[in-house]
């Protein structure tokens, strides 16, 4: 069959103050009708630039196609070189013959227009439908993307819809004119794993039903394994390797592809292994070749959380009184041993971050007890709490936002030492040097500013800062979620090395279940503020017992093209609201012990 898209030696440049910068160069690939081509790469690889070029949207970001052809077979069978098409023609192609969906469902819809208006304007423009006909078609589209209560959605505004529903609307919009090519640019990156599974299944079904081609842009190798027919691997604006999904995953030729694949944790690969394992990094085997399983030591409890409950007020009415409460953390209890990692997993809004923050009293829990190294954190007054913070530090998700852009890194790492009066003068300098060594950052980075570092390097600085006061507990809240996969593997390995060397305990808060499987000793699954299942990592992953744990694990994409899970429509139970009226007394969390240390919430 004739290819619907053939990209030939595409080159895109961006004008900057210091002259043109090449976004992508020498990019060539083809897509056949009914085929899914995944373009995969880390940030800055040029994958998005490539997709935006096909829509000629790259110009709105300051880019220009300076060489190459982008041939697209139009509905009437003629071939159009998109790179040279005049704006009027592109207006007919965009949204009509090529549909596109983007990463951020929360911002992809215009907040001040109704869903109906946003679904119908393209139809009226391209298909010449009148308003009633366009509305009827919009309703049909909402049904085809399986949105509950589609009639009501038409009159609603985007903010009234959940993230998953918005992404369904965005897909409906892209599908409105039955395009022959759908470009999906990281369509599930911002979504929870169950919603991601639903959206991936939806794209697969629509593709099958309409016979359209899909250009799927992603950074996630697991998603590639689940979705792709063929794969293009990009790195720094160039194509590294092209092949079928089996070739790429099972017999990658290029070193970059190999290292990318190695760094991806595969759900299920830890089966039968007792202890966490370092992430695989090509060329890193030697670094810790001598690593042996740590001596099994007598478990010693560092952190004990008993019946922790945190609520946030919902204000309303004329006097801004509290009218309801968000039950963010609901009767949560667990222990964490010295030198071990407890992972809290769950989807957005499940309370895992609130739980971490409540433990550190960054937000005040409503009730419950937190004991760290035999000290009752909840009973401390302000001064003692400040001192106690030396034992418990935090690493945040966004390494761009958690460092002060105006201060040198040296000063930022030294700050906790100064705050606690632990070092000064030459000693301070020496301690900061040691910390930079510990997180494997070059010493000359000390005098730099945050913007001069990459995301992974910044996260190392954040870790160095947390380590400065020799904490016993580190709460890592999505600490590697914002990083590229190879960088993520490096930072995780660093964290595991530090754990081994310093006996650190981690409360590892994450939505990434494949990573958790690799790094955690114990896992707690959170849902609506409660831990629904907790136990040793092997027990939870090998014998998931609570229905929510099971559905969560079934939604995780596996980085193995032979193990595909999202062929048919999936509908996970939507998460209900954690908001309850004042005075609501929730039932206590009661657990059944089904194996040693493996507990499941009683229904």
């Amino acid at each position, binding site marked *: 069959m004739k290819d619907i898209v053939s990209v030939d030696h595409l080159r895109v440049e961006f004008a900057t103050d210091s002259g043109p910068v090449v976004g992508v160069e020498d990019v060539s690939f083809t897509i056949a009708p009914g085929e899914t081509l995944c373009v995969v790469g880390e940030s800055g690889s040029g994958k998005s630039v490539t997709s935006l070029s096909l829509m000629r949207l790259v110009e*709105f970001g300051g880019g220009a196609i300076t060489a190459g052809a982008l041939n697209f077979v139009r509905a009437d069978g003629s071939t159009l070189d998109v790179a040279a098409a005049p704006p009027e023609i592109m207006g007919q192609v965009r949204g009509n013959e090529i549909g596109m969906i983007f990463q951020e469902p*929360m911002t992809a819809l215009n907040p001040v227009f109704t869903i109906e208006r946003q679904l119908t304007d393209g139809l009226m423009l391209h298909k010449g439908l009148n308003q009633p006909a366009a509305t009827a078609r919009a309703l049909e589209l909402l049904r085809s993307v399986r949105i509950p209560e589609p009639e009501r959605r038409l009159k609603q*505004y985007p903010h009234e819809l959940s993230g998953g529903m918005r992404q369904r609307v965005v897909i409906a919009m892209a599908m409105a004119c039955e395009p022959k090519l759908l470009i999906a640019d990281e369509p599930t990156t911002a979504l929870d794993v169950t919603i991601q599974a639903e959206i991936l299944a939806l794209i697969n079904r629509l593709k099958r039903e309409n016979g359209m081609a899909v250009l799927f842009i992603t950074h996630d190798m697991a998603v590639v394994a689940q979705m792709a027919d063929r794969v293009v691997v990009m790195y720094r604006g160039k194509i590294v390797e092209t092949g079928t999904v089996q070739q790429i995953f099972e017999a990658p030729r290029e070193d970059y592809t190999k290292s990318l694949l190695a760094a991806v944790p595969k759900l299920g690969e830890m089966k039968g292994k007792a202890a966490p394992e370092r992430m695989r990094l090509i060329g890193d085997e030697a670094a810790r070749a001598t690593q042996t399983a740590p001596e099994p030591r007598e478990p010693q409890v560092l952190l004990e959380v008993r019946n922790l409950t945190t609520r946030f007020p919902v204000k309303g009415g004329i006097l801004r009184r509290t009218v309801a409460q968000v039950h963010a953390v609901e009767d949560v209890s667990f222990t964490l041993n010295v030198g071990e990692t407890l992972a809290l997993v769950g989807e957005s*809004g499940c309370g895992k971050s609130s739980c971490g923050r409540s433990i550190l009293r960054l937000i005040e829990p409503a009730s419950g007890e937190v004991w760290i190294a035999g000290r009752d954190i909840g009973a401390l007054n302000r001064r003692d709490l400040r001192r106690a913070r030396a034992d418990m530090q935090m690493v945040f998700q966004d390494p761009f936002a958690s460092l002060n852009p105006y201060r040198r890194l040296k000063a930022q790492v030294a700050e906790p030492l100064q705050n606690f009066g632990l070092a000064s003068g030459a000693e301070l300098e020496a301690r900061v040097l040691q910390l930079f060594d510990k997180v494997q950052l070059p010493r000359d980075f000390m005098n730099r500013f945050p913007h001069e570092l990459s995301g992974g390097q910044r996260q190392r600085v954040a870790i160095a800062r947390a380590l400065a006061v020799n904490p016993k507990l580190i709460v890592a809240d999505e600490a590697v979620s914002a990083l590229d996969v190879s960088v993520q593997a490096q930072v995780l390995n660093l964290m595991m090395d530090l754990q081994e060397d310093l006996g650190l305990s981690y409360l590892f808060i994450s939505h990434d279940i494949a990573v958790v499987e690799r790094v955690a000793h114990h896992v707690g699954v959170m849902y609506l503020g409660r831990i629904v299942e907790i136990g040793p990592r092997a027990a939870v992953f090998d014998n998931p017992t609570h229905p929510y744990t099971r559905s969560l694990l079934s939604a995780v994409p596996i980085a193995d093209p032979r193990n595909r899970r999202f062929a048919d429509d999936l509908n996970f139970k939507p998460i209900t609201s954690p908001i309850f009226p004042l005075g609501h007394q929730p039932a206590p969390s009661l657990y059944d012990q089904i194996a040693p240390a493996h507990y499941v919430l009683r229904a």
Partner: protein
Amino acid sequence: MTLPAGQYRPAGSPHAGLPMTYILNRLLSVTLTLFLITLVTFAVTNILPGDVAMMIMGTQSNPEALTGLRESLGLNDPLLVQYGHWVGGMVSGNWGDSLIFKKPILGLLGQKIVASAIIVVLSMAIALALAVPLGVWAAVHRDKWQDNVSSSAALLGVSLPDFFWGIVMILVFARWLGWFPSSGFVEPSVDPLGALQRAFLPSLALGLGLMAHLTRMTRSTMTGILSQEFIRVARAKGLAERTVIWRYALANAIGPVITIAGLQIGYLFGSIIVMESLFGYTGMGWLTYQALLNRDLPLIQDTVFVIAAVVMLTNLAVDLLYVVIDPRIRLG
């Protein structure tokens, strides 16, 4: 990770806070503010040096007659009683008489507020009509020459005082071109066109001064909106660029611009004092000026209250307009 909005609403009330709640909320706060305004106005005018009775009868008047007048005006009553009289009078429609004009204040204010409303509305309309396109133009061509032209124009408007523009207007449009009368005022009920003609030049002068902030606000909100994903989505749908900018983007950007415009109404009442005097336009600004100049305390008190109330109500109107523009506000 961001929390999906829409999940965090109390069960059973998908629209926690309908527009009605919001509107009631705002009305209540306006009423409270108006009450505070009467307090402040009353306090300030009573602290001001000067004696109403003395002002009525002159400094050389008979002390006994003064005492009698004070008694009959209620000036010897406790302040709380006087305040009660004033507010009670306003509520019942008896706003007292102006000392200098020897007329009921209510009628006087009613007449002048209409005159000034023409200038205020016209100048704001001129400012918005210039500022919004200029700001959008600058945002669309961000960091290009158009952007510089727009911000220079805006800067020129704001860096020169209003009365300077007033003088320029008189010179150009009245003296040289003779298109508009240079000064004066006619009753809009008598000669609507003539009233508009006389209001136009002062409004244009004021509008140029107002334009600067509005242009910058339009530019900055538009710049923010144009970088949002839904703009890219709109383009990906194949919508024409003018639809993307003038419908999709502007509908989102206009809210903050209107908010600033509403706040500027307050400044406008300060500016019209100078501008109306310059153009011999006898509106609220001119009336305020006369009242202050002649220490007409009852008139000052009522004028200040009316201006404050108008500014308050304008901002209330803006807030309500915002509800229409942006559906997210309806959640209160």
